[in-house]
């Protein structure tokens, strides 16, 4: 359905970024007073290539119908396209097609697990594995995005379970020194980020999963910042659930994915109920469909699923290894260049080891909002604030920070533009000559 040109042969050599950028119409526009756009906010949302936009348009123009309903030709085509998209996306993360559940976004995917567990609390013994209550513990980390923190706080509040967390070191790494005490026989869930959206830290998934398995706790991995940026294989990771969003990986808004191990999804009660997720329905009661349909109540977002599959195809054609290498080069360069700016302090690991393409920093004497305003005036679009990780900022003694995040379409020139704009801000506010 989409054509992806060869980027100098997938899987080898540096990216042809100029060719890639041609696929992203938005990157050639200007902002504010005619400044070329320097987009450094892909950690919040990525830009979309034509191939993704075309796939969504083609679905609407040729195959649009409500999927898994009706027997007419369009309904068949739409359903085929939707289920084929599921296969592509499952393959992209090394999972099985029956293990991919479409959600609104990653936030909903995580809520799906936490609410299913809350629903299990009032159900029969068959769902014991998912039940939590007083005396049980749920473990998160101090570096979580609010999306992987608040749902667990709420589950604890509803069920009487206790929330605990891995601390973060001053260097922006997880402190696992107390892991054997923290993750124990009372632990029901360990939920953590694969890569921090603020610090860029890539967490040691294997160590945490190994301990969780020893005590029989379920693992939930927030992969929002990893699936778009590095090769991810759910089997190799060994987690039980993994969540990510479409819009951060060149895909459209309004679609996210929950991947879950089949036997868990098969045993798990639903979160949202209604049409499509049922077995049989009587006036008095209903039974549930098998997964993944059990977790997809209502008419699903088929055009977005098709477009997300096109995004996976695009990324696969470029090669996830090459994208990860490209971002590694950028972040290494950015760390070096930013560190050389007087009065600038990097928040998070300063070495490009186990570290993805997001760099947060503080500039002495300039509030991030004011810094972001000057950067924006120069066409450099970054994120300012606490990036939905307020407890992490509090822990690191930072009110707010400025974050630059990279993707396959960014260049070292973008980093240069950032550094030069930071220096302009320092001059403007008179904090540095």
């Amino acid at each position: 359905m989409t054509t992806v040109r060869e980027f100098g042969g997938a899987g080898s050599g540096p990216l042809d970024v100029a060719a890639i950028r041609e696929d992203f119409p938005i990157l050639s526009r200007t902002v504010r007073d005619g400044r070329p756009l320097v987009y450094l906010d892909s950690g919040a949302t990525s830009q979309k290539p034509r191939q993704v936009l075309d796939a969504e348009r083609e679905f609407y123009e040729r195959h649009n119908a409500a999927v898994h309903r009706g027997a007419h030709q369009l309904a068949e085509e739409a359903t085929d396209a939707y289920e084929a998209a599921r296969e592509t996306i499952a393959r992209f993360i090394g999972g099985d097609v029956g293990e991919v559940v479409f959600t609104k976004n990653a936030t909903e995917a995580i809520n799906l697990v936490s609410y299913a567990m809350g629903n299990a609390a009032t159900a029969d013994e068959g769902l014991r594995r998912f039940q939590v209550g007083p005396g049980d513990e749920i473990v998160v980390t101090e570096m979580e995005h609010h999306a992987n923190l608040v749902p667990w706080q709420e589950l604890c509040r509803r069920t009487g379970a206790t929330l605990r967390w891995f601390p973060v070191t001053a260097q922006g790494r997880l402190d696992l020194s107390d892991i054997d005490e923290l993750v124990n026989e009372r632990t029901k869930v360990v939920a953590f980020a694969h890569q921090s959206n603020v610090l860029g830290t890539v967490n040691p998934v294997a160590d945490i999963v190994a301990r969780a398995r020893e005590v029989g706790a379920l693992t939930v991995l927030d992969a929002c910042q990893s699936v778009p940026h590095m090769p991810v294989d759910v089997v190799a990771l060994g987690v039980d659930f993994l969540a990510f969003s479409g819009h951060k990986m060149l895909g459209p808004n309004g679609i996210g994915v929950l991947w879950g191990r089949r036997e868990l999804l098969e045993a798990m009660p639903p979160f949202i109920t209604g049409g499509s997720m049922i077995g049989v329905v009587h006036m008095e009661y209903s039974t549930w469909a098998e997964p993944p349909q059990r977790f997809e109540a209502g008419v699903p977002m088929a055009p977005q699923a098709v477009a997300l599959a096109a995004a996976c195809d695009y990324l696969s054609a470029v090669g996830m290894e090459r994208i990860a290498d490209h971002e590694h080069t950028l972040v290494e360069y950015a760390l070096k260049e930013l560190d050389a700016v007087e009065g600038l302090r990097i928040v998070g690991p300063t070495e490009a080891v186990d570290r993805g393409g997001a760099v947060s920093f503080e500039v002495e004497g300039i509030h991030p909002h004011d810094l972001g305003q000057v950067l924006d005036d120069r066409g450099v679009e970054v994120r300012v604030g606490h990036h939905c990780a307020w407890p992490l900022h509090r822990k690191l003694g930072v009110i707010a920070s400025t974050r630059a995040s990279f993707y396959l379409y960014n260049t070292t020139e973008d980093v240069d533009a950032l550094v030069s704009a930071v220096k302009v801000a320092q001059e403007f506010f008179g904090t540095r000559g």
Partner: protein
Amino acid sequence: MQLDAMYQEIILDHYRNPHHKGLREPHNAEAHHINPTCGDEVTLRVALTSAEGSLLDDRAVVSDVSYEGMGCSISQASTSVLTDLLIGRTVAEGMRTLEAFTELMHSKGKGEPDEEVLEDAVAFAGVSKYPARIKCALLGWMAWKDAVSQSLEKEGV
């Protein structure tokens, strides 16, 4: 560069040398407001002196506004300007000033502020072109409104 229009010298002066900063006694009420997008915060106290022979009402005089805060230049300068404008005014006058300032902030850069009413606060007109920064400019003002309402509820007629 549009920055100069936004960061008027008056704003930067108030940011570098804020007026009436620090929490003081006596006070009738205190309000703590947070901007949830960035974590900026202000704690603001008001002291009111009632009109002669009356309980606290909108004729009361704002005898002091004191505050502590952390935040960007816009939120800090705006709170500093607020203290200059509102200390010594009646509650009714203060509310009218707040209304004029709020209207200016929502004017999308097209407002024609009344300098008689807003004085130094007219410098914030440029901020209204940037929707993301309006909350910054209003942070202290909303805390003031809250603290005054609390005072009137507690001790008013």
